């Protein structure tokens, strides 16, 4: 089964080659799925869904409205040789971006034009002159990639503030292994332990060899509360809300417990506006009284417009050529780029600069004429609020349709997570979160209603 785009272009299929033959690394899965048959698969999908319900594997779209994470359990398989390129490229990006942030706040970076960086909503002047523990700003990093086929992975955007999704990656793989044990037959799947990586990273940031660490959540109505709960369980660190923490007379941050208040060394924060949750927390961090994961001000490089200069950051700060390609993008504040974009809108994706989760993403070839005209008008009126990217015909994978009992192609992407420690070492966690777009769409973000899939890297 191969889908065709409106232009008649065939998208690269992860599952099968252009002749319709299942690719070698999917042969085992195809055989296992064939053995179960449509009825068998539907039964397994049903019990998997019950597990997801019972364990409340949720990702809320509207705050407070209950919604489990929709998952398709047919795994995505990444061959090891593809993974080696991905891992090298991801490691390169997090290191280069971290060096850029250190330069931005402590030197005089000249990679990104002033107007671009200083108009970024998440550039924080109060961080200037501040050096975080071990000079690490970005501890947890997630980058969104798409696969164009034959091992060409292309970066679409970097997530540097509070990237979420790693729990869904772990949960999908874990549930698939339990509910579909025959799927793993014949596969040697790369395993990894995020618990050790995270805890070692926390330790590397503190002078205390056994640091007190907490996970700061925005509460049970937040979109990714499942993830906060899951990670605090996995890491064995307390899950705290704003009122559980306070800044003491000595400037340190304390967590309230039943018997006494304990000074905190590392806060794995999953909230953006720190002082809204814990008054004075930003000041405590900037005075070096507590380590924050991630640091303050990382969002300046998370900005979709600043993304344009990541290849230059890699060349400047690491002296290396970028391993991963990235989507060709245009800065609309530049007159020549703006002219080009307005004349070639039909082939482009327009994104709002500060948007996230697939909101404010306009895939122009998929839109009607009236809508296109409105987007063009918006670009002219507010050129600094948007970026344009060349449209990519990226890969599709199969999703099991329980109603029809058949496999259907859908676009997928891959969010890969990495952790950077105080000693500069980077762990890139094999696999990632494969996100599946809705039928007929190229927007894969879970915030836009897409599914996720278990993802394996196989030897």
């Amino acid at each position: 089964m191969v889908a065709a785009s409106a232009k008649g272009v065939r998208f690269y299929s992860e599952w099968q080659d252009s002749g319709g033959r299942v690719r070698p690394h999917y042969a085992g899965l195809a055989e296992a799925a064939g053995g179960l048959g449509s009825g068998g698969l539907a039964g397994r999908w049903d019990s998997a869904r019950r597990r997801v319900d019972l364990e409340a594997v949720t990702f809320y779209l509207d705050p407070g409205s209950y919604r489990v994470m929709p998952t398709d359990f047919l795994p995505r398989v990444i061959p090891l040789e593809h993974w080696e390129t991905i891992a090298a490229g991801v490691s390169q990006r997090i290191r280069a971006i971290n060096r850029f942030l250190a330069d931005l706040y402590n030197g005089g970076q000249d990679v990104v034009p002033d107007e671009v960086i200083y108009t970024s909503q998440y550039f924080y002047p109060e961080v200037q002159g501040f050096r975080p523990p071990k000079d690490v700003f970005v501890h947890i990093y997630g980058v969104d990639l798409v696969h164009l086929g034959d091992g060409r992975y292309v970066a679409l955007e970097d997530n540097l503030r509070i990237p979420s999704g790693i729990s869904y990656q772990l949960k999908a793989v874990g549930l698939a292994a339990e509910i579909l044990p025959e799927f793993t037959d014949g596969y040697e799947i790369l395993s990894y332990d995020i618990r050790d990586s995270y805890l070692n990273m926390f330790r590397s940031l503190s002078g205390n060899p056994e640091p007190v660490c907490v996970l700061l959540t925005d509460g049970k109505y937040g979109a990714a509360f499942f993830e906060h709960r899951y990670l605090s369980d996995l890491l064995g660190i307390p899950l705290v809300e704003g009122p559980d923490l306070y800044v003491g007379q000595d400037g340190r941050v304390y967590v309230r417990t039943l018997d006494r208040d304990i000074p905190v060394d590392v806060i794995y924060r999953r909230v953006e506006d720190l002082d809204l949750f814990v008054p004075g927390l930003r000041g405590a961090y900037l005075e070096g009284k507590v380590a924050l994961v991630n640091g303050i001000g990382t969002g300046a490089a998370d900005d979709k417009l600043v993304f344009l200069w990541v290849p230059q950051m890699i060349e400047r700060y690491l002296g290396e050529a970028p391993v991963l390609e990235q989507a060709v993008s245009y800065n609309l504040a530049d007159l020549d780029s703006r002219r080009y974009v307005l004349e070639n809108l039909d082939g482009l994706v327009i994104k709002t600069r500060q948007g996230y989760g697939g909101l404010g993403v306009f895939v122009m070839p998929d839109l009607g004429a009236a809508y296109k005209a409105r987007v063009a008008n918006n670009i002219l009126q507010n050129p600094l609020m948007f970026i344009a990217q060349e449209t990519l015909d990226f890969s599709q994978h199969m999703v099991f349709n329980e109603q029809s009992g058949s496999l259907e192609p859908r676009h997928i992407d891959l969010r890969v997570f990495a952790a950077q420690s105080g000693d500069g070492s980077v762990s890139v966690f094999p696999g990632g979160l494969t996100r599946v777009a809705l039928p007929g769409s190229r927007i894969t973000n879970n915030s836009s209603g897409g599914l996720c899939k278990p993802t394996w890297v196989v030897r």
Partner: protein
Amino acid sequence: MQTDVGGALDTVAASFIYAARYGYSDTVIHNDNQLRVFPREGEGQFAGATELWSVPPGRGVDYQDRFGNRVRRLRVVEPHTTFVVAAAGRVRLSTELPVGYDVSIASLQGLSEGFEYTFISPLVDPDKVAGLAASVADGDGSLLGAVNGVVRWVYENIIYKRGTTSVSTTAEQVLAAGEGVCQDKTHLALGMLRALKIPCRYASGLLTGQTGETHSWVEFYHPNHGWLGADPTKGLILPPARDYVKLGVGRDYTDVSPVTGSFLSKGGTSGIAAIAAVVVDGEQPTLEDALELLEGAYVVQNENVSVGFPIERPERDR
């Protein structure tokens, strides 16, 4: 004594102050702003040193935007319920009358200099006022003739009236209402000039010798003389540079608002006051001078503003 500001011979020195105060109904956790309150260089204006104060001080960084304005990004993270910003400095203003020989509008086409200023912008849609523009411009296709026609028409037909328009009133809304303040007149004139294919920009600043509100006017592009002024509120074209202290230029008000930004608070804005003054031959003003001036300012808006990014401050050029 005029020693601190360089420039051409036929100039006059002036000191200026711009000050604004924002009151909030609850504690503000962070207040993030872009300040365009530095005098520009060029078109008969020579900028001296400018001092910029804020209370609480916050932290800031300066950069130049794509229109050539010097901007300070200032983020105040000290909890506060009042935010004051004040800029003061000296400039030297040319006393010579600008000269502009007339040329055809056709000679302006394809120039890269004015390209940024030929399109729709948030408050100015040339297409919506194109019919009027065509009927007002005299038919010979000359640049100064067109500018004169448009500026005179706006001056004579749009009644100067406060309180009926807002910071977000568009050019076509001004035309429909038939009234407004200097910001509105400038927007309508810009829309008409752009409809006639004349690159033109919004200039924001202060009026020499006056204490009160900020002012706005039009600058249009001339292939030989660069940017030239026209003031639809006063009904003048090519006014003398000495009459204005220019703080910023852009496509319309949204690009040059002196204070733009957002804040995070459980409450809203409880009162905004702003004032500007230009004194010929004045001494370098101090923060105390600015605060004293601000005491005399009246509250220009008193309304709740929702929290988000960005929020245009409801403060206006008159």
